C-alpha cells in the first residue's frame, strides 16, 4: 500500500478527548494476473469469455467436475453473473475445462509422488 497514513492517536491517560482519527488518501497496486492456463484446445475461448471477471485459478482449482457440471457452471455465469459469453463458445470452454482438469490433477499427482 502506498502513502497510506491514517493515524489512530489514542487518548492519553487523563485526557477527556476521544481517540482522534485522521484519514489520508490511499491507493494500492495489485499484482498482475498472468492468466496462466494450460496450452490445450479452447484456451482462447476461455481467456476471451471468462477472464474479464476473474483469474483462471478459480476454474483450475475446482474439484474434478463432470461435463454436465461444467455446462451448468458456465450457464450460471451467464444467467446469474451476466457474463457476456458467446453461446457458440460454450462447447469449446467446457471441452477445455474437462481436459485442463484432467491435466492439472494428473500432473499434481505426479508431483506429489
Amino acid at each position, binding site marked *: *500500500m502506498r502513502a*497510506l497514513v491514517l493515524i489512530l492517536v489514542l487518548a492519553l491517560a487523563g485526557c477527556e478527548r*476521544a481517540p482522534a*482519527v485522521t484519514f*489520508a488518501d490511499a491507493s494500492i497496486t495489485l499484482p498482475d494476473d498472468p492468466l496462466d492456463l494450460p496450452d490445450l484446445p479452447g484456451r482462447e475461448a476461455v481467456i476471451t469469455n471468462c477472464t474479464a471477471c*476473474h483469474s483462471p485459478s*478459480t476454474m483450475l482449482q475446482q474439484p474434478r467436475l463432470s461435463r454436465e457440471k461444467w455446462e451448468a457452471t458456465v450457464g450460471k455465469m451467464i444467467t446469474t453473473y451476466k457474463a457476456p459469453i458467446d453461446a457458440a463458445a460454450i462447447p469449446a470452454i467446457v471441452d477445455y475445462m474437462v481436459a485442463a482438469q484432467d491435466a492439472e490433477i494428473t500432473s499434481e499427482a505426479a508431483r506429489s509422488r
Partner: protein
Amino acid sequence: MSESRITRRALIAGAGGAALAAPAIGQKLVDLGLPGGPSLRPLAPAFPGKDAMIVQRIRPPLLETPLGVLGDSAITPNEHFFVRWNWDFPTAINVANYRVAVGGAVKQAVELSLDDIVNAGEPVEVVAVNQCAGNGRGLSDPRVTGTQWGNGAMGCAKWTGVRLKDVLAKAGLAPGAKRVRFAGLDVPPMEGAPQFIKSVPLDIALRDDVLVAWGMNGAPLPMLHGYPLRIVVPGWFSTYWVKMLATIEVLSGEDDSYYVAKSYRIPARPITPEDKDFPTVSITAMPPRALITSHADGAVVKRGAPLTLRGLALGGDAALSRVDLVGEGFERPCTLGPDEGPYAFRLWEVTIPEVQQDLVGIGVRAANINGAVQPEALNWNPSGYARNVIERITLRAV
C-alpha cells in the same frame, strides 16, 4: 498410511514434474490436502502489505493464511490476515470525497463524511474472529464447487470503530424498520450482475458491539481489508462484514437481493449429498472450531518422548468453554491461553506425557458456553459453508 500420503501436506519447494498450468518450477507451493486435488497452491504473487499468503486467486483477490502462521498468536497480524473479495474494488480512495449514504426506512436520509462517521459516537474496540463462510470448503467430502479454501480463511483482529447504531441515529430509524443492508465500493463489471450487498436483522444491527470500523489491530484498515470503513459483526461469518462501506440502507421488509436470498444459504436441516430440494436459511452465526496448528497431518514425532500439541480455537457466536484432544479411546482436556474476549481466537496446548505409538486420527474438539460442540461428522452442504467437523490428523511415531 503410505509414504506419499505422509509427505503430502508438507511445504513442497521446487516441486518438479510435467506441470502444464502449474506455477513456474522453483516456486514454493503449499499442499492444502484437498481430497482428490487439485491441492497445491502458490505463495505468489506477493500482495502489498502482505507476507507469504496462499494465493487462491489473484483477481479479485482470495488470499489464505498458512495454518502454521495462523496458530502463532491469538491476534492475526494484518500482513497474514486472509483476504476475500467477491468483485473488483477501487484501487484508490479519496477521503475528502468519501461519503457513506444512510437511507431507506429512515427519518431523514443523510450522506456522512468520514469525520461524520468517526464523530457519530464513542470509539469502540472489539477483538473478533473474521471467518469466511466457506472456510474449509475444499476439504468437503464429497467435494463441492466454490473457492477451494483450506482452513486458513479466518483471522482474529482488534477492530476499532463506532457503533453502527450511532451511525444509524444520524438518520433515525423510521417505524417498521426490519433489516439493515450494507453495500461497498466493490461492484460487478457486468451490468445486471448482482452487487455484493448484505443485510442483518435490526436486532443485530443495534447490538453494542456491531461496528462501522476503521481500525484493524491499531492500524488503519488496509485497502485489501476494506479501507476506509467496514462493517464488523462479532460472532457472525465475514460475509456480513461489508468492506469499503458506501451505503447503509434500512429495509422495512425482507431482503430479496441475490447474496442474501439466493446465495450464502445452508440447508435448514441436515441433508445428504443425494438430496435435491430442501428449505434453506441464511448462514449467519459461527459455530465453535478448533485446529491443531503445531503439527501437519503426517508429521513425524518422537516415540517414547512427551509431545506438546498447540493450536487455536474459537467459540463462534459465544465464548469458548473448552477444547479437548480426542483420539481413538481417549480424551484429554487442553489448557487454554489468554482470553481476549468472547469472539476472539484462543490459543490452546496439550501435552501427551509419552508417545507410545502412531497417533492415528487425533483432533481437537471445541465447545462454547451455549453448549455447541464440534461434531464428529461433517455437516455436509452443497456450498461447503460453516465447516466445523472435528479436523483429524495422524502423527507418525519413530
